[in-house]
């Protein structure tokens, strides 16, 4: 089993993430897409670590990606909840002003 | 150090298995372990009722079988025959999924349960970390169960349950981390193997910080499994019965079973991390099958003792209020756990990893000379 199956899986995850990010108009749904894209990137890092070079840097990078995704989800969802309190909508097109 | 049950069997029998044999052994071992755990979960309901009856000076169930011990089988048959109600406005897909998520999370955590030095399904090198991840699926199941029922009581119960499980994961994880510092590894066999058979070698008496850590872990695991006095997600007096209000029949049985098995798993982890796990004295573990059986007996005795304490606490203490619960977690347990982590690190640095008992012994020997 080579690296190709892993790249296929991660690219499908990436496509799905991009489709979700563009097609959905719900801010939380867009965050779901971002999680998928980040996962695809981390999966690629780990796969290339195993098949292309032997040092463990890819795993460390995948850990950092997971960490950044967690921080991004926390702050992003806090912003979404705040936005919902101000605007009473979570439509991405209603976010047109920097200041309320 | 064996990695899985398969490699242990291969070493003792002197036979190497191909992939089909490996798969078959894993399948049978998982089936055996899951059946034993289902039996323990069922007997847990019986024990709960019998012990509560004992505490309240009642008889408890005493009609089915000798001392009513077959009551849980009768309950199981009753649950199987009950009508499977699904509320009309509920989210059917999630409603059907959530009990399974709860049960899957608990059963997945059994893979690293160190019942004896040979019978551990897979000795992953991240064992305890994997267990934390697997048990966190239960929180998602509880939340989805509450959300999908489309009922106010269930919704409140599910929200409380998820918030409580996420919050109490912090002190529990930090306490486990301090034990990992002492043992120097994440795999279950490393964690248990670093201890001895007698209390002076257990990690609970290794240093003052781990002694406090045991109680922090125990309180946190009580809250993580939604047991009294932290059972506000299913508080009968305010929410009808919490997140499983709308569930009936086998779906309710899945929730109940997963709760009882999770209590057992967390008690077993407490026994393995702090109370010496499966270690037996006098080199008896070298005796092949007899040693394994003795190790199993020791492990299950310690776990059942903690299980008894959990039930005892449930029928002794009153329920906490929800804000008191959060205050206890974030203002008391988390700082104590952080302090424990730092204190353990300092202890390991200053005393070169020696336990309290060893230092005392050294001082005693030095003063004697």
């Amino acid at each position: 089993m080579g690296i190709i199956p892993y790249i296929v899986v991660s690219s499908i995850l990436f496509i799905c993430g991009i489709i979700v990010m563009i097609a959905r108009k719900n801010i939380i749904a867009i965050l779901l897409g971002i999680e998928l894209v980040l996962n695809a990137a981390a999966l690629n890092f780990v796969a290339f670590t195993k098949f292309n070079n032997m040092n463990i840097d890819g795993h460390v990078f995948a850990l950092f990606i997971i960490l950044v995704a967690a921080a991004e989800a926390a702050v992003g969802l806090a912003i979404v909840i705040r936005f919902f309190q101000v605007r009473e909508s979570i439509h991405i097109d209603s976010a047109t002003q920097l200041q309320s | 150090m064996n990695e899985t049950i398969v490699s242990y069997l291969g070493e003792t029998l002197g036979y190497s298995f191909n992939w089909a044999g490996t798969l078959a052994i894993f399948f049978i071992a998982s089936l055996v372990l899951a059946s034993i755990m289902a039996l323990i979960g069922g007997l847990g309901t019986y024990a709960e009722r019998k012990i509560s009856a004992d505490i309240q000076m009642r008889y408890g169930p005493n009609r089915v079988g000798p001392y009513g011990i077959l009551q849980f089988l009768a309950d199981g048959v009753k649950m199987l025959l009950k009508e499977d109600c699904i509320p009309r406005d509920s989210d059917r897909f999630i409603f059907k999924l959530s009990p399974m998520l709860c049960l899957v999370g608990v059963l997945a955590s059994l893979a690293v349960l160190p019942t004896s030095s040979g019978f551990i399904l897979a000795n992953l090198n991240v064992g305890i970390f994997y267990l934390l991840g697997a048990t966190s699926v239960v929180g998602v199941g509880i939340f989805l169960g509450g959300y999908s029922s489309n009922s106010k009581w269930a919704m409140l119960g599910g929200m409380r349950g998820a918030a409580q499980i996420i919050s109490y994961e912090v002190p529990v994880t930090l306490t486990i981390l301090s034990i990992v510092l002492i043992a120097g590894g994440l795999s279950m066999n490393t964690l248990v193997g670093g201890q001895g058979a007698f209390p002076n070698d257990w990690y609970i008496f290794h240093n003052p910080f781990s002694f406090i850590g045991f109680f922090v872990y125990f309180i946190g695991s009580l809250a993580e499994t939604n047991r009294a006095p932290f059972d506000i997600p299913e508080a009968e007096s305010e929410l009808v019965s919490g997140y499983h209000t709308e569930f009936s029949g086998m779906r309710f049985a899945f929730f109940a079973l997963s709760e009882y098995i999770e209590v057992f798993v967390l008690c077993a982890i407490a026994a393995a991390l702090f109370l010496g796990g499966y270690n037996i004295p006098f080199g008896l573990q070298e005796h092949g099958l007899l040693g394994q059986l003795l190790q199993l007996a020791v492990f299950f005795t310690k776990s059942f003792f903690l299980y008894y304490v959990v039930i005892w606490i449930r029928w002794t203490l009153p329920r906490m209020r929800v804000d008191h619960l959060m205050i206890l977690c974030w203002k008391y347990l988390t700082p104590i756990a952080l302090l424990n982590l730092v204190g353990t690190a300092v202890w390991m640095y200053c005393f070169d990893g020696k336990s309290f008992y060893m230092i005392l012994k050294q001082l005693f020997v030095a003063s004697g000379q």
Partner: protein
Amino acid sequence: MNMFLMIIFTLSAFLAVGGALSVAFAKNLIHACVYLLFSLIGVAGLYLTLGAEFVAATQLVVYVGGVVVLLLFAIMLTGGSNLHHVTSRFGLESTPLMGNLRTYIMGIVTALLLIAVLCNVLQGSISASAVVESKFSSTVEQIGVKLVTDHILAFEISSVLLLGALVGAAIIARPYRSSETEN
């Protein structure tokens, strides 16, 4: 043992790919979130087949225990999925929250373009490098040593990032009314 890995890989890949496709095309937001949970568990299984146990366990702890529950909470606090048709401030009917055919076509076209570019790039790199399955073991000690030697700066900065995220999220998501009375 190779066959064993193959079985785990197939199951995990199906879970990951099926979950991701369902996230992209689900009608209901909370269902999409549950499918995302499956997809993440599948990716954790893929990490296991790649010999990265620590990353897999971290994936389970962080995503399943944290991020998915957080997303579910946010969905519930923002009114669930019952806001399908919305009008903008000017009274015009805007695109439905879960997207319509037009947005999906846009998304798929963009994704195909990106994939075409990626294929062109990756084709060269994969065929150029000799793809050999190397024997190595990823232990927790190795990752820990890497984290405090080679990647010490990133490690420390990430701790500051997490602290900032914690404080920032707590301040941003404060209840609206209490902040109004303070100002």
